């Protein structure tokens, strides 16, 4: 799922300061699971913003509600009239949600209330770990299900580098060396020999480096007969 964190309140307050009628709009999918921008967090953000504005003598109203998925037109649609009633929408969805709302209704003023950080999963309550970068050409079959593109600080395909020590990455003692993990997992399956093969340079053209990507599936497109 997509992981995000709320922006500092001061930053959100500064974005909202010039506007009278403000609404914090949550998204009940990924960002609700990572407790950053679901209904509850949208309400919380609105409440904090109200207190902040009161303290700073900024009038107006700050309200909130949430949409089941901000990244789908069908789900945004039913809330559109409501959103149009505000001078500013603070979307606490991920960056995808923010932009889907903007695309759907260009007349709306929409700002982000979250910093979208990564694709990952909750390892334990309150801890989310990034493990995919969406590079467009999955290598997990070569690396025993551990992504070196995401989890190695240098995205090395022929690791580990010379900075790997005691299972940790050179960038921090809190970060596991992905290549130590890959090595150990290969070893447990008797496949360390796999590492002898020199993996060629990666084709980054299918990743974001090739420009923004659009996936098209002709077989499932709806022929609107235009």
């Amino acid at each position, binding site marked *: 799922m997509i992981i995000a964190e709320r922006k500092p309140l001061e930053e959100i307050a500064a974005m909202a300061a010039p506007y009278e009628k403000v609404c914090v709009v949550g998204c009940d999918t990924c960002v609700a699971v990572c407790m950053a921008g679901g209904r509850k967090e949208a309400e919380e953000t609105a409440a904090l913003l109200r207190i902040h504005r009161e303290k700073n003598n900024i009038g107006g109203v700050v309200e909130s509600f949430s949409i089941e998925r901000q990244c789908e037109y069908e789900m945004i649609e039913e809330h559109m009239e409501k959103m149009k009633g505000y001078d500013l929408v603070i979307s606490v969805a991920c960056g995808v949600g923010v932009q889907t709302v903007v695309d759907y209704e260009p007349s709306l003023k929409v700002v982000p209330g979250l910093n979208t950080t990564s694709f990952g999963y909750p390892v334990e309550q309150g801890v989310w770990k990034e493990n995919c970068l969406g590079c467009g050409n999955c290598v997990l079959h070569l690396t025993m299900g551990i992504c070196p593109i995401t989890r190695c600080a240098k995205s090395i395909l022929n690791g580990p580098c010379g900075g790997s020590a005691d299972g940790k990455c050179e*960038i921090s003692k809190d970060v596991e*060396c992905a290549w130590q993990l890959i*090595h150990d997992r290969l070893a447990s399956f008797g496949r360390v020999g796999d590492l002898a093969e020199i993996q060629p340079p990666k084709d980054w053209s299918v990743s974001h480096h090739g420009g923004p990507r659009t996936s098209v599936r002709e077989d499932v497109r709806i022929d609107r007969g235009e």
Partner: protein
Amino acid sequence: MIAGSKLERAINSGEFVVTGELGPPKGADIEEMKHHAEGMRNHVEAYNITDNQTAIVRTSSIACGATLVQMGLEPIIQIVVRDRNRICIQSDVLGAHALGVKNTLCLAGDHQKFGNEPQSKGVYDIDSMQLIKGLKDMRDEKKFMGGDEVEGDISYFLGAVENPFADPFEYRVDRLEKKIEAGASFIQTQCIFDLDRFERWMELVRERGLHKRCAILGGVTPMKSLGAARYMKNNVSGITIPDALVDRLKGAEKKKEEGLKIAIETIERLKEIEGVAGVHIMAIAWEEVVPEIVERAGLYPRPKF
């Protein structure tokens, strides 16, 4: 003979080789670096020129390497994959060749978070293994990484680094072999302080005959002070210094002399290890001491290569 560089000739001669290291300055005035280069002129075969070492912005390694060429000295330019993509790296290698640089050393480079631009975007388009292989193919197959043809002749002596002190230990020899397969003709190791571990690594290297397929130069760094030793031990990625060594320095009255002694003893031991082709002395911020180390380690005068 591949590139006919002095370093290559020295290695092929079978003599115990000595290389030094120069760190370009954080400014465009390279006089001091040139002075250090002059100081070691008769004591080392070639000089590594670091490439924005520890991710700190410095004068480019190729510019400094070309300056050494003008001085009649032999540079080994370092290329890290952190700051440049394959377009820029290949272009720079062509440029370095055009300027008379004959040795290239391939590294991953320390992560940008360690340097003075921690907010920069790390490139890591290719990794160090792909860099070695790519530069080998550029030289031997006349092909760029993307498959296009390289015009005209180009030749350089290719080296890489290996860290016997990194983990997982057993894999470090496999990785050396992989670098040799990729195209490295010489290897400089990370600074050796833990000689026992180094010897164990060399044993595994010899078991596979890897020392016969590439020249292994042991990395040696003299410790200038207790502070410097502690700093390296705790903050420099990839370096391990046994506590006993730190204690020895701590107990010594004259720290600098003790640091020198340790470095010299290390070289003496390296000379005895079968398969070690030479030493690479990294006395960064203490360059003036290199001639003394080389002399006291019994490696002077240097043979003519």
